[in-house]
C-alpha cells in the first residue's frame, strides 16, 4: 500500500496559500497548515481595536481558510525569533522597513523545523513567480529554498511548472502535470482556479498582510528606533505603533493619543505601564506618554491632549496626569490652538 505523504502548507490567510494547500488535498496528500505570527501581521489587531472596524466580521483569516478547506492549522508564536529578521535583514529592506526576502526564508525555515519535528515530508507555499518585485522572482526562489534549509522539499504548486522539479515531484509524491504555471501580478488564473474549487470567498487577494510594508507604520517604527538606545523591541512596543495618533514634541517623549473609544479602550490596558493623561472635565481620549516627560513639559502636553478631545473649543479643560509611579495631579488648561500644533510633531 502506498504511503500517504504529509505536507505542511504555509497559510497566510490569503488566496494563494489557500489554493496551494487545496491543490495538495486534490493529490491525496495529508495536509496541515502553519501560520507564523511575527507581531507585525495586519489582520486582527486593527479590526479588534478601532471603532470603524468594529462592524466588520472579526476572524483570523488563516483559521478561516483552514476550516474552509478542511485542514488543521497550527499557529506559531515567532515574535522573539523574528526580531533578528527585522533588525538585521541580510537582504535589506524594501520600500519601507519590510525585509521581505529574509522574511520568506524565515517563514519557510520555521515550516522546515515544524516539518522535521512532526514527521512531515515537504512544504508548500502560495508563492507565485514574479508576483512580488523583491521576494517572489526567479532569482530569489532558490535563495529562500537554500537559506530556509528546505532545499528541494519546498514546492510552489502555483508556479511549479515554471520551476525545476522538486523532490516531491521527482519522487512521484506529487503529480507535476497537475500543478500550475502562474506568473506575474495578474490574479486572473488564481481566481479562475478558486472558482474551479468552488472557493468564492477569500481575503486580501493582493497580499499586504504585514505592517512593515506600510509607510506610516514604518515611519513610526523608525522614529521608535531613533529615540531608543538600541533597536530591540517588545511586542507591546510594536503593537502600540499600530494604535492612535503619535505626536513627538521632544526627543525624550511622545504622546500616543487614542482616536476613538475603541482605541481608548485598548490604551486603557497600558495605563499601569505608562505615564498618561485623561480628560476629567469632558469626554476625551486617553493619552499615553512614551518616554520620560519632565515636569516642565507636562502642561504643554496636557494642552495638546485637550486639543484632541471634544474639548477642543472649550475655554478650560481639566486633565489628570498620572506619572508612571502612580502619583497624580490635575491641571486646568486651555486646549492648544490648531496653529500651535506643529506639523513635524506628527510621527
Amino acid at each position, binding site marked *: 500500500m502506498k504511503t500517504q505523504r504529509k505536507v505542511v502548507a504555509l497559510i497566510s490567510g490569503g488566496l494563494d496559500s489557500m489554493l496551494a494547500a487545496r491543490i495538495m488535498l486534490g493529490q491525496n496528500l495529508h495536509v496541515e497548515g502553519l501560520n507564523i505570527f511575527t507581531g507585525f501581521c495586519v489582520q486582527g489587531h486593527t*479590526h479588534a481595536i478601532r471603532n470603524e472596524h*468594529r462592524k466588520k466580521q472579526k*476572524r*483570523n483569516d488563516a483559521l478561516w481558510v483552514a476550516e474552509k478547506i478542511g485542514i488543521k492549522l497550527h499557529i506559531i508564536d515567532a515574535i522573539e525569533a523574528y526580531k533578528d529578521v527585522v533588525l538585521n535583514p541580510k537582504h535589506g529592506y524594501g520600500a519601507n522597513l519590510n525585509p521581505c526576502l529574509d522574511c520568506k526564508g524565515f517563514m519557510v525555515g520555521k515550516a522546515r523545523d515544524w516539518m522535521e519535528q512532526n514527521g512531515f515530508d515537504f512544504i508548500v507555499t502560495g508563492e507565485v513567480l514574479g508576483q512580488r518585485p523583491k521576494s517572489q522572482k526567479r532569482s530569489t526562489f532558490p535563495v529562500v529554498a537554500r537559506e530556509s534549509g528546505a532545499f528541494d522539499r519546498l514546492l510552489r504548486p502555483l508556479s511549479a511548472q515554471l520551476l525545476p522539479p522538486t523532490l516531491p515531484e521527482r519522487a512521484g509524491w506529487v503529480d507535476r502535470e497537475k500543478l500550475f504555471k502562474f506568473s506575474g501580478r495578474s490574479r486572473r488564473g488564481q481566481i479562475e482556479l478558486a472558482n474551479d474549487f468552488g472557493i468564492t470567498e477569500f481575503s486580501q487577494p493582493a497580499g499586504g498582510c504585514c505592517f512593515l510594508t506600510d509607510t506610516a507604520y514604518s515611519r513610526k517604527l523608525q522614529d521608535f528606533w531613533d529615540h531608543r538606545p538600541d533597536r530591540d523591541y517588545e511586542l507591546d512596543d510594536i503593537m502600540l505603533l499600530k494604535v492612535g495618533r503619535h505626536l513627538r514634541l521632544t526627543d525624550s517623549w511622545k504622546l500616543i493619543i487614542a482616536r476613538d473609544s475603541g482605541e481608548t479602550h485598548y490604551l486603557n490596558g497600558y495605563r499601569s505601564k505608562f505615564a498618561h493623561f485623561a480628560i476629567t472635565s469632558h469626554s476625551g481620549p486617553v493619552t499615553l506618554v512614551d518616554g520620560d516627560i519632565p515636569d516642565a513639559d507636562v502642561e504643554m502636553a496636557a494642552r495638546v491632549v485637550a486639543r484632541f478631545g471634544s474639548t477642543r473649543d472649550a475655554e478650560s479643560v481639566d486633565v489628570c496626569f498620572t506619572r508612571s509611579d502612580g502619583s497624580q495631579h490635575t491641571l486646568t488648561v486651555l486646549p492648544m490652538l490648531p496653529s500651535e500644533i506643529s506639523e513635524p510633531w506628527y510621527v
Partner: protein
Amino acid sequence: MVRVDQTLDARNLICPMPVIRTQERVAMLDTGQILEVHCTDPGAIVDIPAWCRVHGHKVLIAETHGDESIVRLEVCD
C-alpha cells in the same frame, strides 16, 4: 456545578495570541479535560472555536459578557 480543569487568562491579548495560548495549553492537557479561556479581544470568540473545530476539540460554551468573552472547551482526540 460545571467542571473546569484549567483556566487560561488571555485577557488583554490581541489576536492571534489568545489562540496561540489556547493551543499551547491544550497541548498540555489530556483527552476529556476541560479548559476555560477568558479573553477580551472581540475576535477571540470567533477564532478559538474555529481553532477547536479544525482540531476536533469540542466547544462547550462561547459567550460574551460585556467586554469579556469565555470559551469553554473539552479536549478531544
